[in-house]
């Protein structure tokens, strides 16, 4: 135990009475009052003050600790929410990409079908024109009518139709190639 002596004890008591400043902390527990009633009272008062301020600090620290825990939990919840949002965003991005791919595929399919129809119609026209011209030419030959004009027309028509057929086939191949890319 620490013995301070009468003079120091008096100075401490005076400082407490005049300025309200007392000893604080665990050091109070180590001081021997040396039988002095006034100093014993001083030490008791200083100890009570110290305990009171510690109690207050302890309560505040506990509140801060609790708030800290709540903040940490809120932060964790926020992080989880952010993660969930990220997952949802990723899923929607994938869905959008899939929908776009489907739409593109559908467009290509429609284009191909349209091209197929055009080709079929064009080929029927080519074949039809070819057949009709040939029939007229054949009838002209069989009936003994002058075939000079129809003959030239037939050969010109046939050349044009063949050229157009190749042109159509070339266009189809080109479109197919482009859509596949």
């Amino acid at each position: 135990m620490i013995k301070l002596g009468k003079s120091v004890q008096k100075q401490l008591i005076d400082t407490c009475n005049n300025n309200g400043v007392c000893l604080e902390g665990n050091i109070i527990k180590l001081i021997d009052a040396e039988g002095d009633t006034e100093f014993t009272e001083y030490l008791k008062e200083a100890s009570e003050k110290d305990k009171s301020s510690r109690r207050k600090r302890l309560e505040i620290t506990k509140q801060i600790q609790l708030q800290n825990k709540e903040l940490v939990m809120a932060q964790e919840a926020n992080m989880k929410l952010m993660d969930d949002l990220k997952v949802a965003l990723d899923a929607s991005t994938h869905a959008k990409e899939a929908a776009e791919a489907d739409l593109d595929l559908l467009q290509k399919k429609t284009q191909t079908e349209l091209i197929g129809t055009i080709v079929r119609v064009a080929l029927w026209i080519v074949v039809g024109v070819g057949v009709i011209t040939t029939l007229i030419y054949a009838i002209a030959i069989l009936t003994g009518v002058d075939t000079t004009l129809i003959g030239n027309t037939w050969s010109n028509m046939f050349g044009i139709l063949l050229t157009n057929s190749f042109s159509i086939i070339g266009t189809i191949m080109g479109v197919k190639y482009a859509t596949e890319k």
Partner: protein
Amino acid sequence: MIDMIDSILLVDDEDLFHLVFEDACSLLDITLSLKSVSSTEEAEKIFVERFKNKDTKPECVFVDLNIVGSKYDGIEMIRKINYEYGNGCVVGIISSSSDKQEQAKAIAAGAQFWIVKSDDIEPRLEDFRKDFDGYKNRTAKFKVYD
């Protein structure tokens, strides 16, 4: 004075808990000498120093189970205190966890007690202080304060 523990070392990464523990120990007159460190590395330094100067040895060590930012956890710290730095001080866990498996590991590492942290830590510390002599004499069995 007789019931007070000479010196306590607290190893806990939560600085706010240092203040809570310090105030609770002071209010309950548990010790006059309390040192708080935030990592096992700092605690290790203290124990290394202990070999040079026996007076620096803490009489009781409270170790948190999970010490964030440290090389190893509380159980490994207890094992080191008991088997590497030499036995002699009362050592146990102070944690918000009360996991039975972790408690079994702590016992195997040489922990003598387990205090569950809560908003109301004072009654648990008071109970611990009552049992302290038993831990010091190595007569008290492992106990969980919850």
